[in-house]
């Protein structure tokens, strides 16, 4: 049952992921990436991480990709004609990507034993305890980082008066 769900999610994730980077229409790119992230959230749920599954949808699909869509629509940029990779770029790019993928997959197959033991459910309470416990400093730093990003984005986009 879980295996079937996983394979369905995996196939959809890869297919929509390919569409997300390959299609010429930026809106279609963003929308198929939404589906990919949804499938990743399904994987999180299978991996006993319900909090992250919800956060994944809330943060990625609900906020980050909406921001992308907003910018795509705001710019409404005509697709540059030169958005055709050059021959060398295509060869090296595909080769590098394939190398990374195959290498990672090979490592995964060779180096990792099957399912783990002692699964810990990643509930909100458990993750929260870790966040304000051992990771408190990082947690506070991230909040400062987010504030900096907020101000930075404002400054970048603001028109000179």
């Amino acid at each position, binding site marked *: 049952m879980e295996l079937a769900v996983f394979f369905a999610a995996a196939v959809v994730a890869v297919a929509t992921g390919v569409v997300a980077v390959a299609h010429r229409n930026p809106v279609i790119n963003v929308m198929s990436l939404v589906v990919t992230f949804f499938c990743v959230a399904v994987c999180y749920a299978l991996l006993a991480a319900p909090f992250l599954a919800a*956060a994944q949808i809330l943060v990625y699909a609900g906020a980050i990709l909406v921001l992308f869509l907003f910018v795509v*629509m*705001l710019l409404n940029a005509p697709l540059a004609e030169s958005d055709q990779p050059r021959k060398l770029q295509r060869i090296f790019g595909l080769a590098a990507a394939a190398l990374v993928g195959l290498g990672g997959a090979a490592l995964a197959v060779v180096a990792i034993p099957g399912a783990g033991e002692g699964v810990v459910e990643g509930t909100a309470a458990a993750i929260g305890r870790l966040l304000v416990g051992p990771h408190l400093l990082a947690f506070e730093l991230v909040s400062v980082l987010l504030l900096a990003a907020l101000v930075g984005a404002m400054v970048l986009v603001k028109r000179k008066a």
Partner: protein
Amino acid sequence: MWAELAVTAAKLLVVATVLLTCVPIMVWVERRGAAFIQDRLGPNRVGPMGLLQPVIDAVKLFFKEDLTPGGVNPILYTLAPMVSMFVALVTFIVIPFSADAGVEVFGVPLKGIHVAPDLGVGVLYLLAISSLGVYGIVLAGWSSNNKYSLLGGLRSSAQLLSYELSLTMSVLGVVLVSGTLNLQEVIGRQGPEIWKWHAVTQPIGFIVFLVAAFAETNRLPFDLAEAETELVAGYHVEYSSMRFASFFMSEYINIVTISALTVTLFLGGWQVPWLTATLSGWPLLLVSAGAFAAKVALLLWLFVWVRWSLPRFRYDQLMQLGWKGLLPLAALNLLIVGMAMGQGWL
């Protein structure tokens, strides 16, 4: 196993049917309410007091021609109303519509009229899924190949993102006090007395949540995505027939869902002071469901009332209110709640 599945399916069916039945009723209430507020009669030709008007409307929408304008992106154009409907129809499963009265059906504990009672991340799930609702509007706006639609879509994406922040922040106050994300437990922690409801203990959070809820459902005074007087009808100008109807229905379902969420988080859910604590079993189930429905109905009337009383915000005023008004207020609420908890008051 099978009995449990059957019980869940039955609950799903009941809740979905009730929710979808709410839509025509809401349409009728909205039109009659508007007429009442504006001192006119409203629809009164079809059936007693115009009660059958929504039925006729639905029939009309079914038989209208389904137009697809030229130059649109067909995939996205078809997808947009589906996304809206999908999001509207999957959010309500975490909302407890009644008490967990300990009733058993076919030997399976019913756990109240609550489709997914064991989902630990209930509040997060609801916020996450409802944050996807913006895609329906944005896609409709973009794919219609129409300037008005595009403007509506643009406005709504910025608006929904901004107000989602305040909405989530005000929910955080409740979650902080409750110490759980499961909505049934959130209700349980509020206690039956009115002064223990979060609307009383966290008035700032309640107001912020309510205002943000109006913005999230694209209702006046925040209906800038639609804005029929300036953008003709915003994101759904080009839609007709049942595709338009799906946008229409999902808007009303969203209103019902967000009202139910408000009741759950801030107004004590299905609890009635001094009454629900004395009941158990089937009477509790029925009374609590009735109380929940009554509270939701009050909020729904508030939605109608506000819509026909307030004018629309200008876009910059909307952004000002969201970022400089509601967001600091929500943070203040969180701060006060934290301090009160530190003092042991909450």
